[in-house]
């Protein structure tokens, strides 16, 4: 056998090394757009920080830039720390997320695995599966609102199965209302998970899977040693998208329950909406919004760091 020759890896396009001069020119040319984007992103945040330190409300009759006249320092933040409604809403949001995202993930992954191979009717099922994602959330909200009425179709179907009349008060029982909301979210957002995971699954090199088969690996071993490691990045992306989106859960839920009964389904977004629209204490709202922004940023930063380490 010949000694190990220095043969480069199979041909791939080598990108030209970056040209510093060109990079500088590019920076100068895009500077106005960058400033605009910076302004759009930074201005609202600065405004929020400013207002969150005041007791300003649109009813006070002074414009927002003069809110410092109502300066209260960190009072809004200390109020937040002891606001049981806020913590309750936060806990409920996390609970919904902890139920919804894993269920959506495993359902989506299962469906994706099913849909990777050809089977009769695949195209039709595929289209049907994607429908919930395309339904306007408000429409979905009304749909589930009607489905879960005590005389609605869900109870009718349950009655048919049970052989007696079932009249569960889905949306007025605090626990069941939360369950109904979770079911609606799973219905609407599993397709997105499915779509992303299917794209990831398809991108796992076929010949590596075939090579594993030829080496005697069964399905589970192949899934564990070839498919999962190669899908890691896309799984993290899918989870991050759903965690962030689910944290903001609002529209469907609000139409179904309005956050009720009582505050039984009041999530962070619903709570903020109510404080903004009904109680009009905007300085406090700004403080809540900032607190959430910071916690979401931490979650995203964590996900991005995981991604970087993975690749």
């Amino acid at each position: 056998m010949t000694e190990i020759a220095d043969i480069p890896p199979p041909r791939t396009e080598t990108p030209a090394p970056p040209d510093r001069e060109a990079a500088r020119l590019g920076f100068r040319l895009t500077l106005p757009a960058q400033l605009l984007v910076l302004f759009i992103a930074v201005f609202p945040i600065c405004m929020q920080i400013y207002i969150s330190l005041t007791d300003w409300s649109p009813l006070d009759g002074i414009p927002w830039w003069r809110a410092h006249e109502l300066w209260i320092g960190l009072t809004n933040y200390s109020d937040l720390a002891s606001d049981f409604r806020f913590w309750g809403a936060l806990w409920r949001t996390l609970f919904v997320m902890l139920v919804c995202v894993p269920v959506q993930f495993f359902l989506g992954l299962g469906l994706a695995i099913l849909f990777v191979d050809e089977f009769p009717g695949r195209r039709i099922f595929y289209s049907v599966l994607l429908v919930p994602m395309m339904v306007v959330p408000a429409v979905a909200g009304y749909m589930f609102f009607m489905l879960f009425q005590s005389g609605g179709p869900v109870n009718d179907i349950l009655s048919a199965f049970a052989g007696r009349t079932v009249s569960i008060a889905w949306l007025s029982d605090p626990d069941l209302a939360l369950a109904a909301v979770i079911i609606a979210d799973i219905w609407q957002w599993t397709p997105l998970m499915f779509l992303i995971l299917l794209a990831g699954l398809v991108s796992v090199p076929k010949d590596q899977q075939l090579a594993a088969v030829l080496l005697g690996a069964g399905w589970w071993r192949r899934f564990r040693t070839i498919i999962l490691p190669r899908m890691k990045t896309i799984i993290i992306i899918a989870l991050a998208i759903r965690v962030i989106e689910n944290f903001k859960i609002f529209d469907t839920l609000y139409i179904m329950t309005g956050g009720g009964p009582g505050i039984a389904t009041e999530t962070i977004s619903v709570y903020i909406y109510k404080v903004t629209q009904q109680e009009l204490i905007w300085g406090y709202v700004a403080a809540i919004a900032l607190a959430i922004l910071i916690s979401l940023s931490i979650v995203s930063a964590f996900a991005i760091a995981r991604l970087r380490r993975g690749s």
Partner: protein
Amino acid sequence: MTEIVLDTLGKDFGSFTALRDMDLTIRDGEFMALLGPSGCGKSTTMNMIAGMLEPTRGQIRFDGKRIDGVPMAKRGVGFVFQNYAIFTHMSVRENLAYGPKAQGMSRAEVTRRVSDIAELLQLTPMLDRRAAGLSVNILQRIAIGRSAAVEPAIFLLDEPLSNVDAAFRAVMRSELKGLQRRFSQTMVYVTHDQLEAMTMADRIAVMDHGRLLQVGTPLEVYNNPSDTFVARFIGSPGMNLIPARVDGDTAHMDGIGALTLTAAPGTAQVLAGFRPEVVHPDDDGPLAMGVEIVEHIGARTIVHLRAGETEVKAVLDAEHTAPREGQAFRFRVDAADIRLFDPATGAAMKRHG
């Protein structure tokens, strides 16, 4: 250590016949090349041996046992993919250990096999490197080592050199041949490159349009091609095939001249075949054509000759002064170097004497 028998093997895809009635015996320990242009059925044949495709007709036998119907994981086939299909997210060691682990061998056995294979293929120093970014010849060794670790009955190789730069193919060829000798395994190698087949294989099976045209050692297919396709496909450049009118033991080629044959074939119209290498420049030669293009390729010079619509290629070595483009060129071809083909069927005509 396996003899593979393909018995009237055939494969249809819908109404398209990818392979028709292929009979081929691949001997124990043999390096067999399946050679042909794309779409000739060579990959279909190999995929059926591997079990990725089921035959439409006929049988495949390993050492006398029918293998069709046996799932591919159970056939004991080592497969080296075109791009090697190395698990790039694993280390070299994990790649080599994949098969033994998947087959549920004991930890001690896995370790033993990996270190044996690594030693044999000189991969020991890089066992803990990640497989991504290694050089191609290392990837080739890992691919072969990974299959060898489960001690397959046969190796199938699917054009493993087609992604390798021209400059490195020679190194890779000699390395692959060395590996085959070391394992003394039955190997089936699919390629469209006649040079790879000629330099590595013990025997070559030349295929075209789903048919097996000829099986033989590299020199057999080179010296005595069974038909015009094999004659053109083997050799670089391939054989010249010129329509000729036979009169006694002379073949007249319009606008070029007459060839003397060793015997009269008894047919009026033939295709006269001769390799570019047997064209001898000869100022008194009976044949003459115009020089169209001259390619100087180091040791060899390829001269493209033309007379009307007829083209002939000649390969001259450095001993001869190459003619200039636009000149007339006189040459001769010795009678022993001429092969005759039936212009209607393309089949080689029997040689008399």
